[in-house]
């Protein structure tokens, strides 16, 4: 009950969650641009509506003005809004091309793969060698969502994070290759003003550039089943040093794991031909 | 109150039934547009599968059906003419022929479908038609069926809905045909005309289905 009316006297724009990406400000600016235009139109139309309702309410000995309208007036109020609205459209264009055009995605400083599934996110880093292993759609399965090609050595050291935690450096152009293993999901980073549906069978590039270190949330914004609401992930933004530290830690465990695996494999070579697991997990 | 004339003569000059049929056909065009639009998109992204699968279809049965259906369009048009002229005997004849053609079409279609359902995919076909994915043993229908690949999904979808349209057209035709033998006879030229429009439309759909499903995938 206490918090109920707090919002009643706050400006709508103040409810945006904190913006921590480079283009976020432009998008928010666009929102408030349209917002203020709307407020103006709202005030104008409501003023007229209310004024007319009061002024022209029924009075016994008044007769309405018999008038069918005028073409000049109609023309004016067709043309003016057209300019205004087309203006909004053209004004929006820049932000749209910048954020979504695949060919305008900036050169990545950091590139990660994100695979959505019912109900979570898997994240893949290229690992110590800095190269992503090849993906083979035919090898996709519940155990191998990315469909890593088991014959590709570059894939052996890829870091796969299964608990939906994304770790990234700030002030770097991050490119996320987004896809999904099953149904549609939508990769939503409220604080970064990023939203993109994930399509099965297609990799879509999503980019952003975070400006502030901290922990933020990843949400799924496309209905994907009963646990849609629970597809929560976390995104940790680090300074470059902290990020390197985190990444080195990951890479080291990957290398160790690889060596251990190799040793085990050599030991068991003669006995059975066991399937070499392409991926290991980390977190 | 029978002196009133509130049920006016058609203002647009086109009889109610016919106008309604045209509106309905506009709707039908959009219905098949949905399929054709989807077909174009998925064909472009699955060219190999589409041409491999089209080769499995039986062109010649389809050709027979094309001719049968075109013929039925002619007899339909003629039966309308005859009824308008009041020549009931010839109306009956042409209507009977139309029904016959419709039935032949359906029989050929059944032969074609059952051929598909009895066709068991071999290794080679599984490679080409299904990208190596083995058919789903739990599929509702045996043999080649909508789950075989996208092409056959379209094949069954489009020819299936077309066949349903044929059946839907045959029902009132049989009714009119039978009615024309009763004592009262049958004398509603506008209804026959509207049905004729529908029947020509069904023919029209086939005119497009024939090339896009059976023909325009060259062998090489």
């Amino acid at each position: 009950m206490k918090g109920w009316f707090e919002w009643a006297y706050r400006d709508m724009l103040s409810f945006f969650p904190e913006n921590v990406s480079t283009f976020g400000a432009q998008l928010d600016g666009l929102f408030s641009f349209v917002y203020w235009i709307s407020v103006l139109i709202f005030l104008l139309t409501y003023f007229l509506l209310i004024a007319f309702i009061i002024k022209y309410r029924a009075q016994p000995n008044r007769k309405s003005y018999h008038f069918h309208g005028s073409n000049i007036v109609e023309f004016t109020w067709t043309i003016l809004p057209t300019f205004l609205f087309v203006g909004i459209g053209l004004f929006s264009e820049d932000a749209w091309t910048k954020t979504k055009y695949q060919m305008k995605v900036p050169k990545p400083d950091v590139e990660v793969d994100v695979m959505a599934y019912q109900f979570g996110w898997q994240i893949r880093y290229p690992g110590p060698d800095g190269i992503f292993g090849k993906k083979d759609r035919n090898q996709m399965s519940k155990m191998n969502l990315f469909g890593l090609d088991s014959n590709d050595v570059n894939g052996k050291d890829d870091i796969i994070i299964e608990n939906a935690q994304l770790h990234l450096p700030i002030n770097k152009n991050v490119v996320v290759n987004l896809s999904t293993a099953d149904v549609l999901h939508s990769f939503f980073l409220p604080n970064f003003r990023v939203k993109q549906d994930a399509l099965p069978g297609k990799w879509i590039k999503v980019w952003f550039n975070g400006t502030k270190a901290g922990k933020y949330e990843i949400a799924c914004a496309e209905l994907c089943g009963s646990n849609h609401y629970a597809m929560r992930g976390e995104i940790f933004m680090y300074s470059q040093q902290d990020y390197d530290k985190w990444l080195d830690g990951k890479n080291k465990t990957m290398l160790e794991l690889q060596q251990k695996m190799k040793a085990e494999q050599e030991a068991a070579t003669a006995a059975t031909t066991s399937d070499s697991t392409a991926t290991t997990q980390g977190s | 109150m029978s002196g009133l004339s509130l049920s006016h003569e058609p203002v647009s000059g086109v009889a109610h039934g016919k106008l309604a049929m045209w509106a309905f056909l506009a709707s039908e065009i959009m219905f098949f547009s949905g399929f054709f639009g989807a077909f174009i998109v998925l064909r472009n992204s699955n060219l190999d599968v589409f041409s491999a699968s089209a080769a499995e279809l039986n062109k010649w049965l389809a050709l027979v059906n094309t001719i049968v259906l075109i013929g039925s369009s002619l007899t339909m048009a003629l039966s309308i003419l005859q009824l308008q002229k009041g020549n009931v005997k010839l109306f009956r004849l042409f209507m009977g022929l139309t029904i016959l053609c419709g039935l032949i079409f359906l029989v050929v279609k059944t032969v074609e479908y059952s051929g598909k359902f009895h066709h068991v995919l071999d290794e080679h076909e599984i490679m080409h038609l299904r990208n190596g994915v083995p058919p789903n043993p739990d599929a509702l229908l045996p043999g080649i069926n909508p789950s075989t690949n996208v092409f056959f999904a379209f094949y069954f979808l489009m020819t299936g809905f077309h066949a349903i349209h044929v059946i839907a057209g045959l029902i009132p035709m049989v009714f009119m045909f039978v009615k024309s033998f009763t004592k009262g006879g049958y004398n509603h030229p506008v209804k026959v005309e509207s049905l004729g429009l529908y029947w020509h439309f069904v023919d029209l759909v086939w005119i497009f289905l024939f090339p896009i499903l059976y023909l325009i995938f060259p062998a090489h």
Partner: protein
Amino acid sequence: MASTHQHDDAHDHQKDYIKVIMWLLIFTALTVAAALDWIPASWGDYGNKLHIGIGLLIAFAKAAMVVYIFMHIKFDQKFIRLFIGIPLFLFSVMVFAFTALESFY
């Protein structure tokens, strides 16, 4: 429920119909012939496109005849053409947007 629009001369129509059916059969034969393997394989993709182009062109020609003569568009009130024109327009909008699905970016 009587049609106010009378068809003046029934006999003429009969002739039209026979003419149309002949053309329809000829075009059917043509379209089957065109689908045979006569384009040299060396033409590659252009050969395919030619195949499709011819097939569709013939189909449209046949469709036009059915609509014009059998369906009486030629003889009926002009506004009835809208019932075909508008859907065709919408279809082309649809196909345009759908086929832009993949390209560009």
